[in-house]
């Protein structure tokens, strides 16, 4: 009998506060920027059209990611412009690509660069060029605004990502113990960025066991310590600690100064750097040009893309190195190059969901989630009032083997990932389905190099960094860890080698 009135009260009051009883909003979206198909053409050694045109460039750069664009930046800066960058995708940038909608620009993958230390000289030079570093001062607007990171655990938020709530004495002791160990490693000066400047044989044995085993040797069995160490490996390497070289695990914690501010970040993440690089060298970049063959010639090499043969003296190979055996004639098989699979998604939010009272941060992570949480693209906005935003959701498919995960990426449709992502977010933001209007998903089968056990000191890797040939490798994967500084370092170094040798000629 009362039902009628009760309903009325509820509906009336709901209208008053403008909430409740709303159905989920329809969510659109799709897979985007898929290069899976193109990759498979190479893998299956499909037949490509024969060359019909010939173009000549002293230098050809294969791959327009950060490594390739950095090589271009260096050449350009030294006044050498007779080169071309061939990029397979319709947009340059590789893992530093970005997107944009009417709300904001947002990253597709790489979203920050830690404030570079003194050894990363090329990175510092670049940032001086871009106005990010001025008279020894980092531009405030490019440093990540506060509050930066939050972790959701036990039903509430904490600042920062290292678990700090609900720790037992044992947890605390183990964090402390690791802290001290890492301080020693850091002081050794072996764990540098770029990697190549350190990495003497002193700690080579760390590369012979997994980070998980090493942690166990140190007596670390705390659940929270292991969660955090695994989080670090998933975040930077797309792998679990058990699949990561202990040397790389240690490097994550010991390669940077502890009191650094930063990181440097932009709404479109490292896409901002890509944009600035393209402003400088964009004229030399050709997009939608997939290189399908590279043949050494007497005076250098011929690079085939589409129906064009690019005849060159030097080739800078800045595409992922695992492609070399498929592209370069007579190139031996590679053993030490394993890649992690990733999935990223950009979610358009029409309003900010319930966050249990917390102010938004740049990076949000949930304890015990298989995903890495999300980064808010409007965090670096200077506006004080933000209604709509874009979240970039990160998911390193670290469980299982990379091959299994690549299959998973092929098998599952967009709807599957959409549901998985929303399900993950709903644990914390209960009304997220009412806020999201669009989810675009990017699948990356060979997203980033994995520093597997034995790969950091791999002889194969070392051979590829040799700079005595006309085919110079430059992708970040030469370092065995995939970060901006390594990509830039190898790109610049390859360009420098080319410049030195070209000059030698003339």
């Amino acid at each position, binding site marked *: *009998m009362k039902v*009628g*009135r009760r309903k009325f009260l509820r509906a*009336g009051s709901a209208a*008053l506060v403008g909430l409740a009883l709303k159905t989920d909003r329809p969510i659109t979206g799709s897979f985007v920027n898929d290069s899976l198909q193109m990759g498979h053409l190479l893998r299956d050694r499909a037949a490509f059209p024969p060359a019909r045109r010939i173009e000549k460039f002293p230098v050809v750069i294969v791959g327009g990611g950060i490594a390739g664009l950095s090589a271009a930046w260096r050449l350009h800066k030294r006044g050498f412009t007779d080169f071309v960058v061939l990029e397979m995708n319709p947009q340059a940038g590789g893992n530093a690509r970005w997107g944009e909608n009417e709300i904001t620009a947002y990253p597709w993958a790489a979203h920050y660069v830690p404030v570079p230390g003194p050894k990363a000289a090329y990175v510092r030079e670049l940032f001086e060029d871009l106005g990010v570093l001025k008279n020894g001062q980092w531009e*405030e*607007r490019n440093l990540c605004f506060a*509050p930066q990171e939050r972790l959701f655990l036990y039903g509430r938020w904490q600042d920062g990502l290292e678990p700090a709530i609900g720790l037992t004495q044992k947890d605390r002791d183990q964090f402390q113990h690791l802290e001290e160990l890492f301080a020693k490693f850091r002081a050794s000066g072996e764990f540098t960025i770029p990697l190549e400047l350190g990495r003497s044989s002193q700690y080579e044995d760390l590369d012979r066991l997994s980070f998980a085993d090493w942690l166990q040797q140190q007596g670390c069995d705390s659940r929270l310590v292991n969660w955090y160490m695994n989080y670090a490996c998933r975040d930077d390497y797309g792998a679990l600690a058990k699949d990561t070289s202990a040397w790389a695990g240690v490097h994550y914690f010991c390669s940077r100064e502890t009191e650094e*501010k930063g990181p440097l970040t932009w709404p479109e993440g490292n896409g901002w750097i890509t944009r600035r690089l393209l402003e400088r060298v964009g004229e030399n970049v050709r997009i939608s040009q997939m290189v399908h063959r590279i043949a050494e010639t007497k005076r250098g090499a011929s690079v085939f893309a589409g129906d064009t043969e690019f005849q060159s003296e030097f080739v800078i190979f800045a595409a992922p190195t695992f492609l070399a055996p498929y592209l370069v004639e007579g190139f031996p098989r590679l053993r030490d190059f394993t890649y992690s699979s990733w999935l990223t998604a950009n979610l358009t939010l029409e309003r900010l969901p319930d966050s249990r009272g917390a102010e938004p941060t740049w990076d949000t992570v949930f304890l015990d989630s298989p995903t890495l949480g999300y980064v808010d693209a409007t965090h670096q906005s*200077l506006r004080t009032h933000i209604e709509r935003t874009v979240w970039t959701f990160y998911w390193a498919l670290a469980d299982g083997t990379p091959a299994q995960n690549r299959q998973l990426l092929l098998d599952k449709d967009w709807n599957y990932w959409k549901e998985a992502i929303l399900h993950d977010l709903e644990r914390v933001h209960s009304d997220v389905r009412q806020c999201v209007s669009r989810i675009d998903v990017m699948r990356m089968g060979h997203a980033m190099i994995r520093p597997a056990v034995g790969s950091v000191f791999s002889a194969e890797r070392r051979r590829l960094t040799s700079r005595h040939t006309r085919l110079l490798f430059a992708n970040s994967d030469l370092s065995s860890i995939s970060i901006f500084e390594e990509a830039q370092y190898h790109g610049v170094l390859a360009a420098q080698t080319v410049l030195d040798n070209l000059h030698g000629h003339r």
Partner: protein
Amino acid sequence: MGILLFISVLLVAACGLIYELVAGTLASYLVGDSVFQFSTIIGTYLFAMGIGSALSRYLNRGLVYRFVWIELLLGVIGGFSSALLMMAFAFTQGFELILYALVMVMGVLVGLEIPLLMRIVRDRYEFRDVIAHVLTFDYLGALGASLLFPILLVPRLGLVRSAMLFGLVNAGVALWTTYLFRAELSGTRTLRVACLVVLCALGVGMADARRITATAEDNIYADDIILARDTRYQHVVLTRFKDDLRLFLNSHLQFSSRDEYRYHEALIHPGLAAVPAPRRVLVLGGGDGLAVREILKYPQIESITLVDLDPEMTKLFSTHPMLTKLNDQALLSPRVHTTNADAFPWVDSSTESFDFIVIDFPDPTNYSLGKLYTTAFYRAAARHLSAQGLMVVQSTSPMFARDSFWCIAETLKQAGLETHPYHVYVPSFGEWGFVLASTREYTPPVSLPSGLRFINVEGLSALFQFPPDMAPLAMPPNQLNSQVLVRMYENDWKDVSH
């Protein structure tokens, strides 16, 4: 008798809804978080109504008699609920407890009403007609109340008197019932006396609502709320007590009309009067037009650009008669150009230069507002200063938020500016501070516009003296990536009991 009876149903339904709305609105105003407040209050209320309905079966005899008493009780409790809740918020720690207890009691009583009424009229009509009529009028009453509440009651009467008005309605229904059912009621005399007592009490309450709320005056919203609005950007509340008009944004007091002249004269004149031949002025924040009112006292000024986020604020202060009286219609002056924009991006994209820049934002209570107190922001703002220009920044209280005040001063310094901090006493705020910043020497003015009530030339130099309890402290600058100020501010005010 039929239609009269059903009108009672309508009125009773309206009262029930009004009390619920009053409780929800009041809790939202006082505690904030309207979604939470409304949800939990509606939930509790409905639950209590359920209990009431269930209990109705235990009332067997003397239904009309009991109904009258329920109406009276509801009239008293519901009628005074709003006043009671304000008092509870002002004087006790247990606001929530009292709120939900009250909501429960009212809910139970409201839950009893309709079942009782149905049973009372059951013998007079066919069962299906009873249901149809009672429910129809029940719904109509609820509709009327839900429309009246936001459109007429809250803006015209305020929450305290709205509740009392409906208390009167409940008591009126009680009285009326004693006449409608006089045939079957015994002891009508006592009942009617009781009705009259309740009616009188509520009547006095209505007439004296001001006095009742005045008792809770120390509390922020104890005054009459004459306007309460959730704009896209903020929660705007305007209250009045006698001749004192107060504006609250997101529960933070922005001004009290009794002493705002102190604040705004101090904000403008020490700086602006020191600029030789000022022509162009920029005001960031300050959509209330009160700073602009002071600036308009300089006839040589040609243009004032006002940048405020919230179009509803600037519209309100250009149209509401009480408010335009307060700001002398400043926002309607042809010299004033109002832009509704977010300040930081606006400052970044504009290329204009100004002889005087007023930065008058709400205090840095969260990280969003904190961005407007950073070296990055001050650098961007200072780029708009003409060669002879000066900038003034409202900088919270050097007394209650001493760390924050000196942090803001340090931030301006780190942005490459010379700083000249000063402070004044504003009764409704306490000691309040400002920082003048410039790229050149500053000397206090030797003449001021006429007609000022607070600032005078003789008193100027004293403003720049800080007694020991507000003396400078070494503080880090506030930057986008650190936002030390927000945390500092929170701690500062935590230490102040208020």
